[in-house]
């Protein structure tokens, strides 16, 4: 594999995760329910949206730590499982 496609792929991945992070932040406020006062199971509906969204965010962040960790932050290193496994072996 030549260096160029790998670089492009990395850039695409980085952009993808960045967009994902933005969507997670932007969607955690239920804009579509603005001025809505529906109550469900004792709490405002918009609050349920927020609670659900933050749980989703947790899963999103978990996925990121599995598949995207290192992107955009580490330089001069391969992004991948090898270093993680090494850390895992010595951790705890």
């Amino acid at each position: 594999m030549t260096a160029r496609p790998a670089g492009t792929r990395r850039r695409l991945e980085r952009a993808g995760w960045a967009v994902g992070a933005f969507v997670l932040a932007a969607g955690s406020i239920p804009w579509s329910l603005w001025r809505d006062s529906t109550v469900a199971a004792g709490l405002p509906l918009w609050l349920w949206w927020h609670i659900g969204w933050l749980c989703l965010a947790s899963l999103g962040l978990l996925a990121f730590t599995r598949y995207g960790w290192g992107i955009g932050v580490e330089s001069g290193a391969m992004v991948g499982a090898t270093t993680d496994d090494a850390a895992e072996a010595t951790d705890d």
Partner: protein
Amino acid sequence: MTETAIQLGIVGGYMVVAAAIGLVAYRLTDRTAEDYYLASRTFGTVVLLFTTFATLLSAFTFFGGPNLTYSAGPEWILVMGVMDGIIFAVLWYVLGYKQWLVGQHHGYVTLGEMLGDRFGSRPLRGLVAAISLFWLFPYVMLQQKGAGQAIVGLTDGAVPFWVGAGGITLFMIVYVAVSGMRGVAWTDTLQGILMLGLIWAAVAWILSAVGGPTAATARLAETNPEFLALGGGLYTHEYVISTAISIAFGVTMFPQINQRFFVASSEKVLKRTLALWPVLVVLLFVPAFMLGAWAAGLGVTVPENGNVVPAILNEYTAGWFTAVVVAGAMAAMMSSSDSMLLSGASYLTRDLYRPVTDLAEEDPSLPDRASLANRIRRSALAAAVSLGRLLRSDRDRETLLARAGVVVFATLSFVASLYAPGTLVEIGDTAFGGFAQLTLPVLVALYWARTTRWGMYAGVGGAQLFYLASVFLPMVPGSYLGGWSASVVGMALGLVLTVGVSLATDAAPGEDATVYTVSAVDGD
């Protein structure tokens, strides 16, 4: 009267237990700076998560948040949820993981050190430390104010404000002076878990007394129907977004939070912590802030300068339980404050004191060109070098200075807490805004090799001046373009100045952009 005695006994007893943990940690602490300030970078997931969390668990969240939802509606949950659960989590990676890698590689203990080394600039290091200490002051004061109010509320004014505020001041001074980061982190963990449990117990108790969440919310719909509709009143789009951004970015630059970016024992710990953030935030903020909103529907009256959480507890639960929650909240404030004071002390000694004393090693002669500028520079340098030689001494003196600094700082903020106006949320929000002005220049520096020293001076200094003016000068407005806060406007200004001035200037001798180029392998 006897109930008051029991309540004070519970608060006192809890504080003693927290102190005992500090003493145990003290016995395990080496006398090195890395161990004192960073617990030798050995924190595991649970400890790191809770120590950061408990630091956020301050009077601002505990009393200020419910007070706000009591008076303005529960939307504050969204502001804190977005800010803490998501934006902060993203910054935890982008800023925190990067700082961790760089810190592991070069052995940094403070933010100022990290920047000063990269830009070869002692003034930058000192400037960042001075700005941080400046904004730390109101936030420590906020904790003392919260503790004073808590004791007044608990005892119905039988014990005056200054006793609560003064007591917590004394406690945190002793605590920081003896135990260092390890003790602080251990009690944080204990307190974080305890507070989470207590808040849920409080919600369960109160809701069972009033007939469940549906009944409580129905009462709220009768008295304050506006509270259930999302937005409105205080909560405009601009307010929600700018407050969340300003607090989240500000939090990362708090000395005690920023220093935690250096303390994780491995990458794995940072990863696990990241994914747990949003869940933990929901678990804490939803019950705590809903209590405030429900209290409005239940017609709970809050005494002037009091807090809604103790008020609703007093009305619906037993006296001893109110005391336990107040003790937990005070301990949480103490753990926030002692982390702050500890980090503040490291900024003071490492970034302000040591650079001056290190000057003693320097040669005050400059190239002998007789220009006026050179003559002025030579005299300034000579003066600085003599000051450095005067202050130079061994590390014992530095340790003494750190502890003396903590005593002076905490005492001054205690005195200020007796007179300062403003609600807990206002004071906290202002401090967060001040810290937030640092974040974007630091991010630019970490990721953009073209950043120059002058770009940093302009970005850090310019944003700070603008924000200070908006806070302290009445003619500079605090909100722009239909509700965007001065803090967010200042952040944008800082970004533009850092990038613009960096493009217009060249790297000075002594700058080294490669300092921040670190790979994961280096980090491990």
